[in-house]
């Protein structure tokens, strides 16, 4: 068997994966009956449907041919996703200034045309703008500096 449509195949795998996680997690939920649906009824219905759709995509991908998948640029993706999570880690203990600086510098670095001086200037501008607009003008409850 050869995979003729890799994009279909891997989306099928992805959907089946989500469905499997949903079915395994929903095992313990009360099903109930159609007239008195428990918390597990609708999710299980959807998960089975999703698994069927994923399986169809996989089955179809060995019959019909389709486009190949363009290269995954793992590094920028991982760096930016990590920067977003890091912002979540830093925002409460260290405040807006430090977490925005880290976020901006890291995500600028993830691009192909990184220039340090420019990124520092950008981070400074974003910090001034955010503190001015979000904290002072809108009064959102954000720490500016590390709370010790």
């Amino acid at each position, binding site marked *: 068997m050869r995979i003729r449509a890799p994009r279909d195949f891997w989306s099928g795998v992805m959907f089946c994966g989500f469905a499997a996680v949903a079915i395994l997690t929903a095992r313990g939920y009360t099903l109930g009956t159609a007239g008195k649906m428990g918390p597990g009824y609708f999710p299980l219905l959807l998960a089975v449907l999703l698994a069927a759709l994923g399986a169809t*995509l996989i089955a*179809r991908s060995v019959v019909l041919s389709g*486009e190949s998948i363009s290269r995954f640029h793992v590094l920028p993706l991982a760096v930016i996703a*990590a920067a*977003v999570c890091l912002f*979540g880690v830093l925002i409460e203990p260290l405040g807006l200034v430090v977490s925005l600086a880290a*976020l901006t510098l890291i995500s600028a670095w993830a691009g192909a045309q990184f220039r340090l001086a420019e990124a520092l200037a950008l*981070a400074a501008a974003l910090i001034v703008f*955010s503190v001015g607009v979000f904290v002072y003008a809108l009064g959102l409850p954000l720490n500016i500096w590390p709370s010790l």
Partner: protein
Amino acid sequence: MDVISNLGLGFGVALTIQNTAYCFIGVLLGTIIGVLPGIGPVTTVAMLLPISFTLQPESALILLAGIYYGAQYGGSTTAILVNIPGEASSVVTTIDGHQMARQGRAGPALGIAALASFFAGCAATLLIALAAPPLATIALQFGPAEYFSLMVCGLIAAVVLARGSLLKAVAMVVLGLLLGLVGTDVNSGARRFNFGMTGLADGIEFVALSMAIYGIAEIVYNLEKQQTASIVTGAVGRVWPSVTDLKRCAGSILRGTALGAILGVLPGGGALLASFAAYTLEKKVATPPRQFGSGDMRGVAAPEAANNAGAQTSFIPMLTLGIPGNPTMAMLIGALMIHGIAPGPRVMTDRPGLFWGLIASMWLGNLMLVVLNLPMIGLWVRLLRVPYRLLYPAIIAFCCVGAYTINNKPFDLFVMGFFAIFGYVALKLDCEPAPLILGFVLGPMMEENLRRALLISRGDPMVFLQEPISLAFLVAAAALLIVIAAPAVRLKRAEALNE
């Protein structure tokens, strides 16, 4: 006349100094993000949601709506001058618009785009004012069975009208529905799919999810594409089209408006589909000589009219049924719910000031947009010189601050990081994100209506076929699926959507 007195009420709300100012801010921001490629209305509205907490619901809705239809104006500027769509819905405008710019007719191209948009925006707003009240009256009589079938029909229509593979789009809808169920079940209080994380007790934050997919994942996707921009920066020249031009385009503008207004109402439709369809239609019916593809002005006028009409009428299902037709509308529903207003047919009767104020603000906003776009075009051109490497970290920063301030919950940032990765993978695999977002919003509503309908019928699923309105929705959904699965139509659809 009811409509007139209602509109009077609406203008009373929209014309207060405060709301006029928010309308202006909305359309200004909309124009800016419309001009800038790589940031769309979904992300912008999401970023502004925390700000709208502090406003009156009327002001918040006027502001956020302005961003959406303002973006349709701004998108054409980039399309014409740079040959890159500033907004997805201005993709087709690049075809003839940029050719015109290369021939030194950038001015009239921008002018006709703005005028067509203005006409379409005004006409479609009138349509909302006329069509929404009777629709809401009908919707008030809907029971759970009708609502459930309506949502099925809406989701199917959204899938059929989406680009790309039908099967993947259906799967994305189902996945979206499942993700929407994460959190505490309102009926039993059971915690579902929280994987032991307390952060998921209230479900996945919608703003974090949509910013991850439309903001962060898109950025990573854009970073790997080499931007080959050819900005036509020479003199834009006279912006006003000549009388001959206007006469030539009048028919196209009217056709574009009509087609856009109809397609905008459909779920999954809205601005994007409308512009594609209008261009395809124009190529078939415009009076010769036709020079589509090499700078025909009607190739700018029709899609620009259509995307604006579509953007306006896509408010109809949101306002009358409480059902979003596209991700931006889903976001506006979120904004209403933040203010404790349940979207649906009752909004019109319970909060007439909100409903008619929004409609009145649309006329106001369209007028402001013409003024913003025609004389100030030079300013927007300069905005295009901002390089993407400066723009994208700023977008990421605002997304993160926005996602955090919604609930002051650091956990939402982890959700955003996770779905950024998911969104990127989905983009790479050709899985359209819009159906997922719609499914996500409709998930809990669908479960609740299914549960109630079956409770009333004592578990008999035939109830969906016995209620005539419900049956009609289901038949329509089935018909859509059958039609789209037919090979001949499938080819046509691929042709129309991929041109």
